[in-house]
């Protein structure tokens, strides 16, 4: 047995660790709540450390071409499943782990007790997410999508009530159909090209016979339907606002990350397979992505203006950010992609913080409390908000107001926070890009810029209205009681947005390296397909 260096094994750990821990937590009785919470939190911290380590290794030049490869079960690349970590995957891992940790701390107060097996489902969700980011094989991507979805079904229904069941029925049905489309797409791509490994596919795509290329285009389009359903592109995203507003807040915050998985999958597959190296198929579908993304922005902006409750508003906010990202991927030339990635990180952080914050601001307004009381009664939790266990932070109302303003500024892209930098650099990059084959600034780009600004305006109007109603017009005389364990995660996410602003230069450099790496498709082929399995040293005869 010749061993791999320990760094190589880190690539598979973000998948294995939550799987093992989640499974280990299932037999633990619900009464030993602290054990469950403790283990889940420990795993989460480990995952964050792992993700940061992987990012440092990838960016620090530990692997050639900044791509780490792990051959699962030691099978060579196009035949077995290769896990791969590059800058984009590492970025998504860090983002997921950060938000997951915040969500877990937030849910420790009571949300993880309104149903059974919260922590196991949560860890399985993380496993699915991490796997989807790390895998390099289309069918394996399907498997991890299903793991993630199955866990999300459970989490969405967590704290069973009528609202959640109604939303869950639609959410599950839509996603089951999307999964079927995913399978059809994968099958067609396999029929056309004979491979499911993404770099291998990228290599073969330029050499396909015309009739096979046609089949591949159909397959990729069907596959895109499945991805875009997850990413909530108009007109596939009608399930999203209803689902978000009925899920319990920690779960809704995780759903924000799940929307980004659809965007990630499109980014990964499209840039690799239909990039500049694809010969006659180069650029297939990019215009459709831009158009769809812009339609999504319009849909989201109208939805934002028309919704009354906060959670629904946040759902439409997520739709807007998905639309922006898809439109940007469609136009991915020059530094637009780097700005898009920065926008992705900033928007996801702010949106998750906002989801968590909403539950806290709901306490100022009585109507939300009644619904909660029913759930808690059903699960026989004696929880009195009046005498909470733990540290109650002073100045709750000031804290809520400040966090709300920060989230609103980032989501709508107003100065001085990271949302503004993201939007400004997007518009700047859109106007600057001197892409070959694209003469100057096209009308599409002007429309997109206009839409970005209009969407920002719509969100600031909607959020301001919500803020006024919540903080000024609620007539609340007693400020809500907040625990440190609830305030800290929101603060952490908000502070991270501020850190993104302060360190914008460094972050942007990283994003530019990421976008640059994504465009060098040959590197992926070279690293993944050229990665040789570990050679076993035969065991000597005498030792058997």
């Amino acid at each position, binding site marked *: 047995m010749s061993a791999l260096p320990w760094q190589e094994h880190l690539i598979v750990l973000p998948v294995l660790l939550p799987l093992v821990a989640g499974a280990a937590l299932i037999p633990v009785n619900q009464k030993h709540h602290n054990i469950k919470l403790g283990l889940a939190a420990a795993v989460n911290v480990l995952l964050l450390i792992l993700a940061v380590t992987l990012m440092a290794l990838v960016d620090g030049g530990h692997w050639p071409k900044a791509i780490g490869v792990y051959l699962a079960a030691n099978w060579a690349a196009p035949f077995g499943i290769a896990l791969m970590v590059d800058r984009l995957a590492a970025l998504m891992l860090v983002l997921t782990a950060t938000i997951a940790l915040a969500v877990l701390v937030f849910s420790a107060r009571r949300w993880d007790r309104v149903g059974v097996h919260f922590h196991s489902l949560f860890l399985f969700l993380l496993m699915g997410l991490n796997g989807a980011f790390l895998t390099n094989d289309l*069918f394996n991507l*399907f*498997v991890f999508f*299903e793991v993630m*979805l*199955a866990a999300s*079904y*459970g989490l969405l*229904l967590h704290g*069973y009530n*009528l609202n959640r*069941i*109604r939303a*869950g*029925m*639609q959410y*599950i*049905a839509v996603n*089951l*159909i999307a*999964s*079927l489309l995913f*399978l*059809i797409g*994968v*099958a*067609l791509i*396999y*029929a056309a090209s004979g491979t499911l490994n993404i770099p291998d596919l990228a290599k073969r795509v330029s050499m396909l016979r015309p009739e096979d290329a046609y089949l591949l285009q159909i397959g990729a389009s069907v596959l895109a339907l499945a991805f875009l359903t997850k990413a909530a592109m108009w007109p596939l995203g009608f399930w999203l606002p209803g689902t978000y507003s009925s899920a319990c807040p920690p779960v809704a915050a995780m759903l924000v990350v799940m929307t980004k998985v659809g965007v990630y999958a499109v980014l990964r597959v499209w840039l690799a397979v239909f990039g500049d190296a694809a010969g006659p198929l180069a650029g297939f579908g990019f215009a459709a992505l831009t158009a769809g993304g812009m339609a999504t922005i319009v849909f989201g902006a109208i939805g934002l203006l028309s919704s009354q409750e906060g959670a629904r508003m946040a759902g439409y906010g997520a739709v807007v950010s998905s639309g922006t990202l898809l439109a940007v991927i469609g136009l991915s030339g020059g530094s637009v992609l780097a700005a898009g990635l920065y926008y992705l990180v900033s928007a996801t952080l702010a949106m998750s913080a906002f989801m968590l914050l909403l539950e806290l601001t709901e306490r100022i307004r009585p109507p939300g409390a009644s619904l909660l009381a029913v759930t808690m009664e059903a699960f026989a939790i004696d929880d009195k908000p009046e005498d909470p266990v733990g540290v109650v932070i002073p100045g709750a109302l000031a804290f809520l107001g400040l966090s709300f303003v920060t989230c609103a500024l980032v989501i709508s892209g107003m100065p001085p926070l990271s949302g503004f930098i993201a939007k400004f650099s997007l518009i700047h990059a859109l106007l600057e890009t001197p892409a070959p084959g694209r003469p100057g600034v096209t009308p599409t780009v002007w429309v997109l810029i206009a839409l970005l600004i209009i969407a920002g305006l719509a969100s600031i109007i909607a959020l301001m209205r919500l803020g006024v109603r919540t903080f000024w017009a609620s007539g609340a005389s007693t400020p809500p009681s907040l625990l440190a364990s609830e305030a800290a995660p929101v603060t952490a996410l908000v502070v991270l947005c501020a850190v993104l602003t302060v360190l914008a230069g460094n972050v942007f450099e990283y994003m530019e390296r990421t976008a640059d790496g994504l465009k060098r498709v040959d590197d992926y082929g070279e690293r993944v397909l050229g990665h040789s399995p570990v050679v076993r040293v035969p065991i000597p005869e005498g030792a058997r």
Partner: protein
Amino acid sequence: MEIVFAIAVGVTFGSGIWLILRPRTFQLITGLLLMSYAVNLFIFGMGRLWVDRPPITPQTPVDPSQFADPLPQGLVLTAIVIGFATTALYLVMMIGARGLTGSDHVDGEEPRE
């Protein structure tokens, strides 16, 4: 054989689509099942249709055109298992919804006349 296979997949999938557009959960789940059967057959067919060819190659160098493609068969197996599990999950959810809402309409309430 191809035409029979194609018609079978098409008719099954088409029936599934019709059923998932119906308003009752039982029809919905039957439709989903039919669609997943059709998709499984479809994946299987994507390895091309062969008769009397073994899928596993022996060690000696062989002519690959004499053997069926084993990969789609492996994919189908995985897809069947996953489809089965998620459908079972949905069934549980449907029972829960039926119990809580007292209606088997997909919206959780009977349409108002």
